[in-house]
């Protein structure tokens, strides 16, 4: 097969239903499966799609990207009595700002098993066509955090400047090197076009065997709100989160083993938060050295003064 045919075959994996013209776009992306603990990441974006009535306009044909023995299609019964087969979905939605402000591109997918480079090339194509100015990837992981504290949402970015309108947002620069995930591949691909990116992770308590964690979804959406021009109503989710928390307290009230464990996690969480908010060690040492220098300086000034006398 020639290069042209190869390219045509690759691009034919993009199944368009519409070609919207977007501008100044913020691109939000989340993948189901393991980077989506308690479905908190994808649910956050689904909630956005629902509230904004965002429009589905293109999807990626899963055929070339999935090992269906690993990522099986799902069979279900329809109300009509028929059987429906659902393949792994990778779908793009858009929302256009009325006032000519920032448009939104929303991607909800499943991490593919195969051909990550081709897969990210396809996402890159849609991002480019949509005038993407910023990529924000959203994930959720099971972590050793207590359910009794504010849900932890961490952000990181390889860019110190996330672009016009986002100058106030400062995330830690990731300082991990080693085997990496799909989000890093996509961030790198868009980075080649100088599109800045940020990555947001919600942390769900690992000991909660829950299908969904509305408290964490609420926290992720609150964090995402700063990237979105449209107003997002979090009140329904806040109520759901409140009920979820109340139910948790009830369910865990007679489990003393969990209670002790949660207490230990709380201590760890508190000390970690303290650690996060403390100044960098280098800054601390600098501050102390400046203080000592200042002290020395004032002592010397005092001695000089004595000599002058």
């Amino acid at each position, binding site marked *: 097969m020639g290069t042209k045919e190869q390219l045509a075959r690759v691009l034919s994996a993009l199944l368009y239903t519409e070609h919207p013209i977007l501008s100044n776009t913020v691109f939000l992306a989340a993948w189901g499966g393991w980077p989506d603990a308690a479905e908190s990441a994808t649910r956050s974006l689904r909630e956005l799609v629902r509230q904004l009535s965002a429009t589905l306009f293109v999807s990626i044909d899963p055929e070339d990207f999935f090992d269906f023995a690993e990522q099986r299609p799902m069979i279900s019964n329809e109300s009509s009595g028929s059987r429906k087969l659902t393949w792994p979905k990778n779908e793009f939605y858009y929302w256009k700002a009325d006032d000519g402000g920032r448009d939104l591109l929303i991607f909800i997918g499943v991490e593919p098993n195969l051909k990550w480079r081709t897969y990210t090339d396809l996402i890159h194509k849609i991002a480019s066509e949509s005038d993407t100015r910023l990529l924000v990837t959203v994930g959720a992981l099971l*972590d050793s955090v207590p359910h009794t504290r504010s849900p932890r949402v961490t952000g990181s970015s390889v860019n110190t400047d996330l672009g016009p309108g986002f100058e106030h947002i400062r995330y830690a620069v990731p300082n991990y090197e080693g085997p990496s995930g799909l989000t890093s591949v996509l961030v790198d691909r868009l980075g080649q076009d100088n599109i800045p990116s940020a990555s947001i992770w919600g942390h769900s308590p690992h000991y909660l065997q829950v299908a969904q964690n509305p408290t964490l979804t609420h926290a992720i959406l609150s964090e995402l709100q700063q990237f979105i021009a449209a107003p997002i109503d979090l009140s329904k989710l806040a109520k759901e989160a409140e009920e979820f928390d109340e139910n948790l307290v009830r369910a865990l009230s007679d489990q003393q083993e969990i209670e002790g464990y949660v207490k230990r996690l709380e201590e760890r969480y508190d000390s970690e938060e303290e650690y996060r908010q403390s100044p960098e*060690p280098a800054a601390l040492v600098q501050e102390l050295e400046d203080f000592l220098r200042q002290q020395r300086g004032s002592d010397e000034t005092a001695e000089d003064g004595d000599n002058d006398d």
Partner: protein
Amino acid sequence: MLRNSFVHIQGFTIDDEEDLWANGVRDWDDALASDQLNAEQRQSLEISLAALAARDAVYFSEQYRAGSRWRLLPDFDDETAFLDIETTGLGGDSYLTMCGILDSSGFKAYIRGDNLDQLVNDLDQYKLVVTFNGISFDVPWLRRELGPLLNNAAHVDLMHVFRGLGLRGGLKKIEKTVGLDRGGDLSMLTGRDAVVLWNLAQDGEPNALETLIRYNAEDVSSLPRLAEYAYGQNSVGTPMAVPGYFSTARFDTSTLPYDSSLVQYLCR
């Protein structure tokens, strides 16, 4: 700081060092300006000054016993690697699976079959390596498998330093004793679980490698905190306590996803 330290000078005991401090001789400059050193000791101090200027950590490493090498920590902070390895066991046919390194720029995972071959080269940049039980285990293992390495680096083995403080036991026991217990499900894993995680990863279990990396990262990230604690305890009330030691190596392990259900499976 090393410049406040005198026990490496021939004929000096810890009591002599304390006497010097008590007499207002707080650092090497004070000592050279004083009349409290004989010619031989003065010469020894001048060699120390030159070694420090030349960033010769090995020289100082040779002057101190393993339990006293905590004194090197602040001076070589920017050139320090905190290191921990994982292997497939302890037997003769066991092999290295990964090595985690934390320095002032962050955490890096070296994985067998991936980027482990970069490790020897990368280790060249460090003047100091900090481990827990690395004198007996990690460094000899690395040398056995990868050849000569860390020849120009001093080694602070925190296990020996904590023994000097009267604390014995493994990493997690020491963490608990000094109040740096991590909590969390990963802290329930052991080296044996790390072997299982590696084998699962080789068998294609999704996320087993990520979980192994996170397990290793948690152990490595604990080392700077333990080193700070050990330095603080050893130097309290001495001129070495000012300005103290705060490692610039820090890494937020919570940024590394892992598979909690795998951990639960291992802890079942």
